[in-house]
């Protein structure tokens, strides 16, 4: 009477026992949802922080002042030399007239604005605005630019750049540690929840063993049950996460002085979020079931 793998039977047994042991199933799904929501929230905060820092990083630049005695064609040729340097992503030429205009505009709202208007162009130098690829290596890039013939000086806010790097690294590290800790705690709680659910069914398992069921036969319905609970938890957590995220996004967009905070729309992250939730739900559902029934099979 031995039989091959009967997917339909195992799935239907797994589904049936979810409803037969409704309360424990509900508890297990709630635990999965709670754990995924907490993990998801921390991850989304970290992703947004990284995104914002990335934006700030992208806007970060330093200036290289050009020697005023340099002939015009050599000034133009400097652009290629600067672009050829490592870690330089973009180079923009700013003539001294433009520099003066920008300078004056920055004092537009001050009382002595008229004083700046009378400044001659010669006070300013032609300059290149240089964007870097990796903000962490900005110091080295500035040194390289200073060595380029024709560049007389540079102006870089290295402290600000270093500050960005520190904040990003700390935020990233904290997020990873928190997510790992929460994942371990989630696995522990869910394995115990499923173990509790399984404990109430040890008699069923004992009867199956007694009549001659193989361990694989006993295990499969539990695996399907864990799978269904894990996936259900993942889907519920995904939509709840969506709702929570929307609420936060709306609140931030309506808050005063929050103009600098630019959150990533949930839609852009939906695919990776559901993917990660499903994988995590699968792992903790199936893994929890296997761990939970292991000791009941040793008869």
């Amino acid at each position: 009477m031995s039989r091959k793998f009967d997917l339909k039977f195992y799935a239907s047994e797994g589904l049936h026992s979810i409803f037969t042991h409704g309360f424990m199933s509900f508890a297990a799904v709630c635990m999965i949802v709670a754990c995924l929501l907490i993990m998801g929230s921390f991850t989304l905060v970290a992703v947004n922080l990284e995104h914002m820092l990335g934006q700030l990083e992208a806007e970060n630049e330093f200036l290289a002042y050009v020697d005023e005695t340099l002939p015009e064609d050599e000034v133009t040729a400097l652009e290629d030399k600067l672009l050829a340097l490592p870690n330089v992503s973009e180079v923009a030429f700013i003539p001294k007239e433009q520099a003066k205009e920008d300078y004056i505009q920055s004092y537009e709202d001050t009382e002595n604005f008229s004083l700046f208007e009378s400044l001659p162009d010669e006070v300013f130098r032609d300059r290149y605005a240089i964007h870097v690829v990796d903000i962490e290596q900005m110091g080295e890039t500035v040194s390289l630019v200073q060595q380029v013939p024709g560049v007389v000086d540079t102006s870089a806010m290295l402290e600000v750049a270093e500050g960005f790097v520190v904040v990003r690294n700390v935020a990233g590290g904290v997020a990873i540690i928190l997510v790992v800790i929460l994942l371990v705690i989630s696995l522990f709680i869910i394995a115990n929840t499923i173990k509790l659910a399984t404990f109430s069914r040890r008699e069923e398992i004992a009867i199956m063993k007694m009549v001659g069921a193989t361990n694989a036969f006993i295990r499969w319905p539990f695996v399907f049950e864990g799978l269904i609970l894990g996936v259900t938890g993942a889907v519920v957590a995904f939509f709840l996460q969506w709702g929570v995220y929307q609420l936060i996004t709306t609140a931030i967009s309506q808050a005063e002085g929050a103009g600098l905070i630019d959150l990533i729309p949930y839609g852009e992250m939906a695919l990776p979020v559901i993917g990660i939730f499903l994988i995590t739900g699968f792992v903790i559902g199936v893994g929890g079931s296997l761990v939970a029934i292991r000791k009941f099979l040793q008869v």
Partner: protein
Amino acid sequence: MIRFTEVRKEYDNGTKALRGISFQINDGEFAFLVGPSGSGKSTIIKLITGEVAPSEGRVMVNGYNLTNIAPRQVPYMRRTLGVIFQDFRLIDKKTVYENLTFAMRAVGSSGREVRKRVPYVLDLVGLSHKADQYPDQLSGGEQQRVAIARALVNNPSMIIADEPTGNLDPQRSLEIMMLLERINELGTTLLVVTHEKELVNRFSKRVIAIRNGRLISDETGGYYNNEQKV
């Protein structure tokens, strides 16, 4: 067939449950295993069902040598046995029919086999009309009949009944024993563990008596008497 050859069993805590027991129960036999509490009856049942292994000696059950059986072979050995317990061990959340179906599906029977076999066995134990009821809606005697039906449903060659009448009144106990006798007459080997003297003596079958892990007597048409034999 069951054959014990100089079987000794010592548990990890040092308890010597069996001290060299030998007996054989042939196919088609009906035998009682009797003895006081702690005499080793439960250990014999556990040895037969493969829950524990002997410390010494040899245990053969329906062609399987349980002294060195591979763990993956144990389920297939158990399929040759039906086991009945004092406390019935039915699944409360399943109906009578589902309890039997569950036992059949557990060994890989198809839906068609289940639909053919379960009604036959329910009829045999006289519970066809209770198929849709849950265990807690049944009397103790009826629950034990369901347990017997479950033991029978996979068509084992042997049934091991561990104190099957321990939770029943004398009348229900007699009915259960008569049912077991009828099953035996249909060809199934029966080993009934009990300490109910009246029942044992009434049926005049083979009686294997043990005490302190040793065989005291083994007689066909035997008589169970605490004072004289056990």
